[in-house]
């Protein structure tokens, strides 16, 4: 049936004398491409709307007076197309266009970063003339100008194809960069005061004039990648290498749960740049700047290269051999496990490594005290709330991959709660925007305000005071209406865990409306850690700890005696920290956790100090390693093979990029410790782990979702507000260390307050506002935003605003506000 329909939609045309069938509306250039006929082009990009800007793809079409641009010409029945291969007219037209394009091109290929991989270079060779007839002065512009701290623009090289401006408008929605001026002075630029007769600094750099708007888009790196000449280049890769120096390895991004396919280009054991890989099912051809440019943490100077052991005599960490450190770790854990050892894994692990931790905890340490959630996991509330998120994950997420990017794209409507897609899962944001822009997807956001990301999605807002989301999901008519269409999706962020009853309400809402639900965590390893059992109530494969048959299945798979696996659900991250701080734990095994990410960093550090034995598996020196008794260095993502599981539950496997590295995976290190404790863990090789995970039977048991009642919203008094907070994409995260130019494109941290609060505090945009709790204070410039009454928003971990460390609270808590900087008098007044 579809075949018949398809046939009705096809046309027959001839290209270079070959008859070919094509779908109606298809572009001639695409049909030719399918036939293996390469027509030169610059502006054409399959994911961008046709523009016909560069005119390089001219072909002859019979019956047309002049050659036509094949990138904008749609096919028609009986069309006869002749490309440069069969038509002298087309060939001459293309050569002419090339000559015109090269008139003002500086031909500085030896200094240009694009040299060697440049479509203009290649096509000038294939379709251009050997010499130019133009002997006059070329147009000159100032050599590269920084249009953001990360992106450089060299207007002399530009051929005005508008790929960058079309990307920014159509895909990212950030109209920072555009065509400006007219005629021979037409150029790509960002808005600069001096350019428009305003007061600039005159040295051509952006950001120095008062009204300059730099190209601070989270997706600006894609314009560098798709620029067909060297007009847009990245600061970080500038002059570092040539394409023939580089070895390109496919890999997966280790930052967020989007699971982007990437290409890492490396030279002499060092990654020099990363590009978006081409995966139509996931990231299409895009990625975000964090994934593209945030990779220097792996070569930071504080990388730990050798094991460290705390010397009993001096009390200081000293370098030790692997065998000494492993014995120290094994003997310490042997003693500590009698009183219990907690395992905190963080969200940066590959599936294989997370599985190793989960297995290590159960088989070697005999505990279920393992948690991957390095973040606030609940509002401090009633006992029912304690296990709410874990129960929700067990019931609705673990082991399920129901919703994909394609489903989100084809959905009629999406409800987003506890998630700011642009900041927390940028590629999901691009997919949502693609559908929203096409007009097929209606986005509804349950959030305190319409952020820039939501505005770009043209989202409808259900304004929510933090803590009130559960009630809204349960009762708000707009929420129910948003999910009424069949095929609607409900996207839930990890932040909803801190709303009492929020996840229960989301599960209930999905069940009630039939909407498909997806849980979108923030880190690349979160979903994998969940599915491999790094949770106190779940075993690998989403098996409930409390289910005897699930434990029996696993006992067989792991070849351990039935009944030896711990049956009682363990402690979650907050309880592990509290137990350690209270002296109830014999030891902690910590992999890649930054205490600053936890709900209470001060308590976490106290726990790390208090715990008798602390083993840290880390990449770089951190607050954990400096307190650890044994530090074992592990490999960063580029130096190991592994798999990330993205938010869809899709496995994103990758191989080692830097093969010369001798760094070991977490799984390999844990296997070595286990061997010293007479257990064969068999997690040293990713292939064997993959085999073991693949051979595991599917879990049949699935618990019921939690049913926690919605909590009450905090009631702030005068000069106080309920805190809303989430992470910005580019912030102070440890994986962004050392990328100063990237940090330069981050959104400036502000404190967002509503009009009413601003009136109370007598502040206007840009005035400093201080948010304070008993722990400390955060002062940022105010941005007056359309927020609900008595809500204040702060970035969670941006410069000047480490909410968890400085305020010791999370979203939903009440903070006191005052205008100006935190002075002693103000602080006193507020404490009264």
């Amino acid at each position: 049936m579809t075949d018949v329909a398809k046939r009705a939609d096809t046309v027959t045309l001839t290209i270079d004398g070959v008859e070919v069938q094509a779908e109606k509306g298809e572009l001639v250039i695409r049909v030719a491409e399918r036939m293996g006929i390469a027509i030169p082009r610059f502006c054409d990009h399959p994911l961008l709307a046709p523009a016909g800007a560069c005119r390089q793809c001219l072909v002859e079409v019979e019956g047309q007076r002049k050659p036509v641009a094949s990138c904008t010409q749609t096919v028609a029945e009986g069309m006869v197309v002749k490309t440069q291969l069969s038509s002298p007219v087309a060939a001459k037209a293309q050569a002419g266009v090339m000559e015109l394009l090269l008139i003002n091109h500086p031909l500085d290929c030896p200094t240009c970063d694009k040299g060697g991989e440049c479509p203009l270079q290649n096509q000038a060779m294939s379709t251009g003339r050997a010499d130019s007839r133009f002997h006059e002065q070329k147009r000159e512009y100032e050599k590269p100008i920084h249009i953001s701290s990360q992106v450089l623009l060299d207007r002399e090289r530009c051929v005005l194809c508008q790929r960058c401006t079309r990307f920014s408008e159509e895909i990212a929605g950030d109209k920072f960069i555009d065509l400006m001026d007219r005629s021979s002075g037409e150029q790509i630029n960002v808005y600069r005061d001096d350019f428009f007769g305003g007061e600039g600094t005159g040295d051509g750099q952006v950001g120095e004039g008062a009204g300059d708007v730099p190209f601070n888009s989270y997706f600006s790196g894609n314009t560098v990648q798709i620029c067909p000449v060297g007009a847009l280049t990245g600061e970080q890769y500038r002059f570092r290498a040539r394409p023939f120096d580089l070895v390109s390895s496919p890999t997966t991004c280790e930052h967020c749960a989007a699971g982007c396919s990437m290409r890492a280009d490396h030279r002499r054991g060092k990654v020099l740049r990363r590009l978006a890989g081409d995966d139509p099912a996931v990231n299409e051809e895009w990625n975000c700047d964090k994934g593209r440019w945030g990779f220097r943490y792996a070569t930071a100077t504080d990388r730990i290269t050798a094991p460290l052991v705390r010397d009993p005599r001096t009390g200081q960490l000293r370098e030790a051999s692997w065998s000494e450190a492993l014995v120290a770790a094994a003997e310490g854990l042997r003693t500590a496990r009698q009183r219990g050892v907690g395992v905190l894994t963080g969200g940066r692990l590959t599936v294989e490594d997370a599985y190793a931790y989960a297995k290590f905890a159960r088989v070697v340490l005999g505990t279920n005290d393992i948690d991957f959630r390095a973040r606030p996991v609940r509002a401090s509330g009633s006992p029912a709330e304690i296990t709410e998120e874990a129960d929700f994950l067990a019931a609705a997420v673990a082991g399920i991959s129901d919703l994909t990017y394609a489903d989100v794209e084809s959905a009629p409507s999406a409800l987003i709660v506890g998630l700011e897609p642009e900041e927390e899962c940028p590629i999901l944001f691009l997919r949502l925007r693609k559908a929203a822009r096409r007009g097929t997807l209606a986005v509804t956001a349950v959030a305190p305000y319409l952020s820039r990301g939501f505005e770009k999605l043209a989202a409808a807002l259900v304004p929510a005071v933090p803590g009130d989301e559960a009630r809204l999901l349960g009762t708000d008519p707009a929420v129910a209406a948003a999910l009424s269409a069949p095929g609607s999706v409900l996207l839930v962020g990890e932040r909803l865990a801190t709303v009492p009853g929020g996840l229960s309400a989301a599960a209930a809402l999905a069940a009630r409306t039939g909407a498909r639900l997806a849980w979108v965590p923030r880190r690349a390893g979160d979903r994998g850690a969940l599915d491999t059992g790094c949770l106190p109530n779940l075993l690998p494969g989403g098996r409930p700890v409390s289910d005897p048959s699930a434990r029996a299945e696993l006992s067989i798979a792991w070849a351990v005696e039935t009944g030896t696996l711990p049956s009682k659900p363990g402690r979650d991250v907050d309880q592990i920290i509290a137990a350690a701080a209270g002296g109830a734990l014999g030891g902690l095994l910590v992999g890649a956790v930054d205490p600053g990410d936890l709900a209470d960093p001060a308590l976490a550090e106290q726990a790390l100090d208090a715990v008798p034995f602390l083993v840290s598996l880390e990449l770089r020196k951190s607050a954990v390693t400096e307190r650890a008794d044994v530090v074992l260095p592990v490999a960063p993502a580029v130096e190991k093979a592994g798999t990330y599981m993205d938010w869809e539950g899709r496995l994103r496997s990758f191989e080692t990029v830097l093969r010369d590295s001798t760094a070991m995976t977490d799984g390999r290190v844990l296997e070595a410790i286990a061997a010293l404790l007479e257990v064969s863990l068999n997690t040293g090789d990713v292939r064997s782990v993959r085999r073991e995970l693949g051979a595991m039977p599917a879990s049949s048991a699935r618990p019921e979702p939690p049913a926690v009642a919605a909590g009450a919203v905090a009631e702030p008094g005068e000069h106080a507000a309920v805190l809303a907070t989430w992470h910005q994409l580019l912030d102070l995260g440890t994986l962004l260390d050392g990328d100063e130019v990237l940090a330069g494109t981050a959104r400036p941290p502000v404190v967002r307050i509503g009009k009413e609060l601003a009136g109370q505090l007598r502040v206007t945009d840009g005035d400093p506002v201080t948010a304070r709790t008993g722990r400390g204070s955060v002062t940022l410039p105010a941005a007056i935003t359309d927020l609900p009454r008595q809500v204040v928003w702060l970035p969670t971990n941006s410069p000047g605003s480490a909410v968890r460390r400085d305020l010791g609270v999370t979203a939903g808590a009440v903070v006191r506000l005052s205008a100006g900087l935190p002075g002693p008098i103000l602080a006193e007044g507020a404490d009264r």
Partner: protein
Amino acid sequence: MNTLTGSFKGFGVTFAHMFRKVVTTDYPFSPPKPAPRYHGRHILNRHPDGLEKCIGCELCAWACPADAIYVEGGDNTDEQRFSPGERYAKIYQINYTRCIFCGLCIEACPTRSLTMSNEYELARDSRQDLIFTKKELLAPLLPGMEQPPHPMRLGETDKDYYIGALTNPGTSAGAERAPWSDQGTHDASDPADHASRPETAGPVRKEGAA
């Protein structure tokens, strides 16, 4: 033929050689002079003000069939300028254990920065020493030249350095030959020279040093 005439014939050959031109050279006391276009070790030339001609484009490395050249580019800034224009070679290495002296790198060089001298005494006692870096390869500073980094002295922009440069021998005169290649226009006893190239001062030899 009898044996007697045979022996005389043999001695005749030996005897005749006594009157021929001697092919033995008195190396190392008077090293032979290679042809002017002999492919010897490389020189990285300078502009007349001392700025490096090399722009770190890596075309030499690209052209090299023996993979003997390693280059990493760097960014010139107004404070730290090594060459005219935006880019310079932060790292430049030629590995003489690999180099086959074919000269393709010279042909590839777009700024005529890389040329070859006539020096052929390249024996070293370790492989490491055969990797020549910018320190060894850069031409010595001639009078009027200034050790980079320094601002452009010969013009406002890099174009002033390049337009007409290839037809103007003055910009590379003196730098194309190394003083130690015996044919240099430069006095090898110049102390400034030794200061800038201490590690290659060894093979410097004057005409008829024997």
